């Protein structure tokens, strides 16, 4: 058997039982890699359940900085008998299987082409600790130590992480270090170490941070000045509002009075959550909510009202596996069409699509500006992978010179000036020719500027009308506003100074990691060069159409079954569908570079024949 070897290029998978405290141990392992200056990415693969079912955690270490998931497990750390069979099977030939050998491994689990490394985790714990809960928790630290010894992780780094982790409970530092060191010692005494497959300190992460997208969005909402949030719990969006609450409690509470510069209400359902967001934005506060597919479905009627009555709103959709209740703890990008055209009638919505945590932060701040500038809902489309997994990301950045763009809002002085000029305020008048009217907030002026917000057909003065021509004029102005939006949304990202190929690829969101890696694979291993574009927003900027125009074929890579993004391109830009080739993944796991490479190479091979 040829053992796997190599430096800083490996995948470690942890097989745990959920509810056993493994998450923090696994996270310490991942952070050790990060603190040794090596790029890494971590994925939680967890069940929709609170306790007892299998859960996996996968860390990819990549010197080259590839942050997507990679197929194939090099090292499996399995402490879950329930999933052991499939865990053994998933190890690459020549890989390593780490397990608790307090009891002998059943022969069913033995493979000829895998290295078995037994560590008596329970045995060591029984010897060191008397309390049952301690035995469970410290067992996790023993495997962290064992891995550190096997992979040559610097022990001082692990100790530093333990110290940080238990900063608030310093009594726990010592026993955790002890357990970790017991794992180290066991490996040193019983196995050759380190393995041929190992890590080595580098200086490749710069000022990066490791953070999940939901937390970044939550902090972004604080920085954006959101003061109102209505929400309803749903995986995978819950931790976003929780992060907003956490940082608001930290940064927005008056130390003397205890009063908060924020109002957060857990609503009775997503309809109410969105209703609160609308009411607050209508009244001049920055308000938002976060949800996932099922919640977005419920919000449809209100989204139509917000679009038609032109009320700002910010909504984050952390997409999960659909349809219906679907796979609540798996990732997909399958709400695109629902979000883009949510609600009956001719309705469309602006989408922002971040692809990493730092962009989550930026796009949240942008979303509030855009919502008020455009007076319409802005839907930030993330997904479970981005929202709930920790990503190596550029640090969050804020420019203190940045001012909130509160959009076109008349003040009392504006209203007086208007009437001095003999003009009447019209809520839906297109004063500037950009399709965006001026609004007034309640209580602005004792006698001027009031209007009646409604979802019924209305004229430019917000009066009810059944005149179909007038209604069509309003719809046309909304189209004009839509065109204005295209000019001010975040721009797409292009990965070449100028086009170099007649083939292009388009991707967005969390597909980006794998797509960028696939570009390298295609070039290095298949000799194929492609131009690449990352979409960041809907409706599309003119440069998106230009990119498609400039290529004979475009691969559209996305994580849903129906190629929804491709449909948006076809629908909005009238692209010939034949030109847009689907590369799809919808198994609930983040798409991999291999899947993209294979999809593209296979297609190109097929048309050659």
């Amino acid at each position, binding site marked *: 058997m040829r053992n796997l070897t190599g430096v800083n290029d490996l995948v470690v998978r942890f097989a745990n039982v959920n509810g056993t405290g493994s998450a923090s141990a696994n996270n310490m392992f991942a952070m050790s890699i990060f603190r040794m200056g090596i790029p890494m990415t971590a994925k939680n693969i967890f069940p929709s359940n609170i306790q007892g079912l299998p859960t996996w955690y996968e860390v990819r270490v990549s010197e080259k900085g590839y942050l997507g998931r990679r197929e194939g497990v090099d090292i499996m750390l399995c402490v879950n008998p329930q999933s052991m069979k499939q865990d053994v099977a998933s190890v690459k030939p020549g890989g390593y299987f780490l397990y608790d050998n307090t009891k002998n491994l059943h022969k069913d689990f033995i493979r000829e082409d895998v290295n078995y490394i037994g560590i008596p985790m329970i045995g060591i714990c029984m010897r060191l600790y008397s309390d049952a809960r301690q035995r469970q928790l410290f067992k996790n630290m023993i495997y962290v130590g064992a891995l550190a010894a096997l992979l040559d992780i610097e022990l001082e780094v692990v100790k530093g992480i333990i110290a940080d982790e238990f900063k608030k409970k310093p009594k726990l530092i010592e026993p955790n270090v002890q357990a970790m060191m017991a794992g180290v010692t066991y490996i040193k005494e019983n196995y050759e170490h380190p393995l041929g497959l190992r890590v080595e300190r580098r200086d490749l992460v710069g000022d990066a941070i490791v953070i999940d997208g939901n937390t970044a969005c939550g902090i972004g909402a604080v920085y954006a000045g959101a003061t109102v949030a209505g929400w309803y719990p749903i995986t995978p969006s819950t931790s976003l509002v929780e992060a907003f609450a956490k940082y608001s409690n930290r940064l927005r509470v008056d130390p003397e009075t205890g009063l908060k510069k924020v109002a*957060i209400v857990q609503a009775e359902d997503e*309809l109410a959550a969105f*209703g609160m967001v609308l009411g607050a934005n*209508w009244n001049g506060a920055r308000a938002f909510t976060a949800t996932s597919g099922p919640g977005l479905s419920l919000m449809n009627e209100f989204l139509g009202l917000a679009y038609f009555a032109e009320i700002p709103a910010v909504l984050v959709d952390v997409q999960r596996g659909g349809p219906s209740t679907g796979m609540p703890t798996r990732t997909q990008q399958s709400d695109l069409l629902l979000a883009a055209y949510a609600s009956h009638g001719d309705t469309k919505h602006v989408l922002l699509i971040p692809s990493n945590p730092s962009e989550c932060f930026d796009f949240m701040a942008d979303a509030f500006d855009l919502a008020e500038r455009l007076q319409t809902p802005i839907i930030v489309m993330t997904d479970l992978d981005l929202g709930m997994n920790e990503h190596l990301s550029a640090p*969050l950045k804020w420019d203190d010179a940045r001012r909130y763009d509160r959009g076109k809002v008349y003040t009392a002085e504006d209203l007086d000036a208007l009437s001095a000029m003999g003009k009447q305020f019209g809520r839906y008048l297109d004063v500037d020719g950009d399709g965006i009217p001026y609004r007034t907030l309640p*209580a602005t002026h004792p006698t001027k500027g009031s209007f009646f917000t409604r979802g019924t057909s209305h004229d430019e003065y917000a009066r*009810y009308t059944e005149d179909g021509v007038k209604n069509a004029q309003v719809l046309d102005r909304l189209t004009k506003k839509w065109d204005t939006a295209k000019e001010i949304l975040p721009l797409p990202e292009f990965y070449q100074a100028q086009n170099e190929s007649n083939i292009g690829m388009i991707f967005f969101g969390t597909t980006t990691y794998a797509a960028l890696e696939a570009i390298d694979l295609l070039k290095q291993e298949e000799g194929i060069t492609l131009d690449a574009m990352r979409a960041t927003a809907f409706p599309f900027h003119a440069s998106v159409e230009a990119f498609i125009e400039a290529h004979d074929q475009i691969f559209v890579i996305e994580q849903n079954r129906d190629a929804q993004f491709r449909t948006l391109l076809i629908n909005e830009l009238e692209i010939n569908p034949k030109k847009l080739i689907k590369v799809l993944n919808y198994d609930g796991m983040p798409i991999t570079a291999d899947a993209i490479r294979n999809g593209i190479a296979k297609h190109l091979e097929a048309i050659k024949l």
Partner: protein
Amino acid sequence: MTYIKPKFRHPDLPKNAVGFTKTDYEGVISTLCAGCGHDSISGSIVQACYEMSIEPHRVAKLSGIGCSSKTPNYFLNNSHGFNSVHGRMPSVATGANMANRDLIYLGVSGDGDTASIGMGQFVHAIRRNLNMLYIVMNNGCYGLTKGQDSATADAGSVSKSGSVNPFEGIDLVGMALELGATFVARSFSGDKTQLVPLIKAALSHNGFALIDVLSPCVTFNNNVGSTKSYDYVRDHIEALAEIGYVPEKEEITVSYDSGSSVDVELHDGSSVQLHKLAEGWDPRDRQAAMSRLQQAKAEGEILTGLVYVDPDSKDLHEIIKSDKRPLNSLKEEDLCPGAGVLAMINDEFR
């Protein structure tokens, strides 16, 4: 079509303390059926706001969908209005209130809008003690969709087409009491002397104030056999007390025998005077209110008046401890922690 009323103002029209005439509190001309109860309620709202000298622009009026929900267009033209979607006014009002606690929130809904499609939101607005006046214009039917029975239609009530409602009606007053509402009243669109002071008291209340106003639909539910017709309501009404509203600072002049009258001081310093009370009756006693309501029901009476009030009620903002300033008035300086703090936050993720 909506008509704008000609703005002819008689120079001698009396002005209230904030300099407005009663016409300043009106809206556009109503498009409801002549004789619709809802229009009378609009009139009572206009009168109450004028007499209370509320600055109209300090009011935000909100509604759902239905004939009743159209009425905010027919009063308080100088107030911002929000005609939302069917049954969802409470959440919009909640958000609006969260954004600015200093305004007066006046929500109007129908019995369909509240007791069917909007039941969930209604219940939860009560639970949070949202500071607002919530008026249900209750006609026991869906006026705007041409007269179907609503969930507040009494069992046995006969519709215009002659069908008998087989289902129990929901009593919103009883339900609100059970849910812990802090101001609960019932009234009748045709009884301005009761409704106007009730609206004033409700507007002075700190927290959720429900007034369930029986408001006959002349077009679809005013027939013989209907328990929501003008005739039926007039015949079965039973007022708990005579009610007077005394604004803040005004001295209470009328005095009644103790035992038969109660003054309840409200949050803003005003008070409601209740007199000719039934014996042993105190509107601050929730339990008594619930049993009195049950008793009335058993006797086939429609109980009206201020059924329950908690003058010490704490509203949503007090419960969640939000800033005393309206949140919509806060600026970057108040809200954005700045780049320095962000650098520290970043460090926690390394």
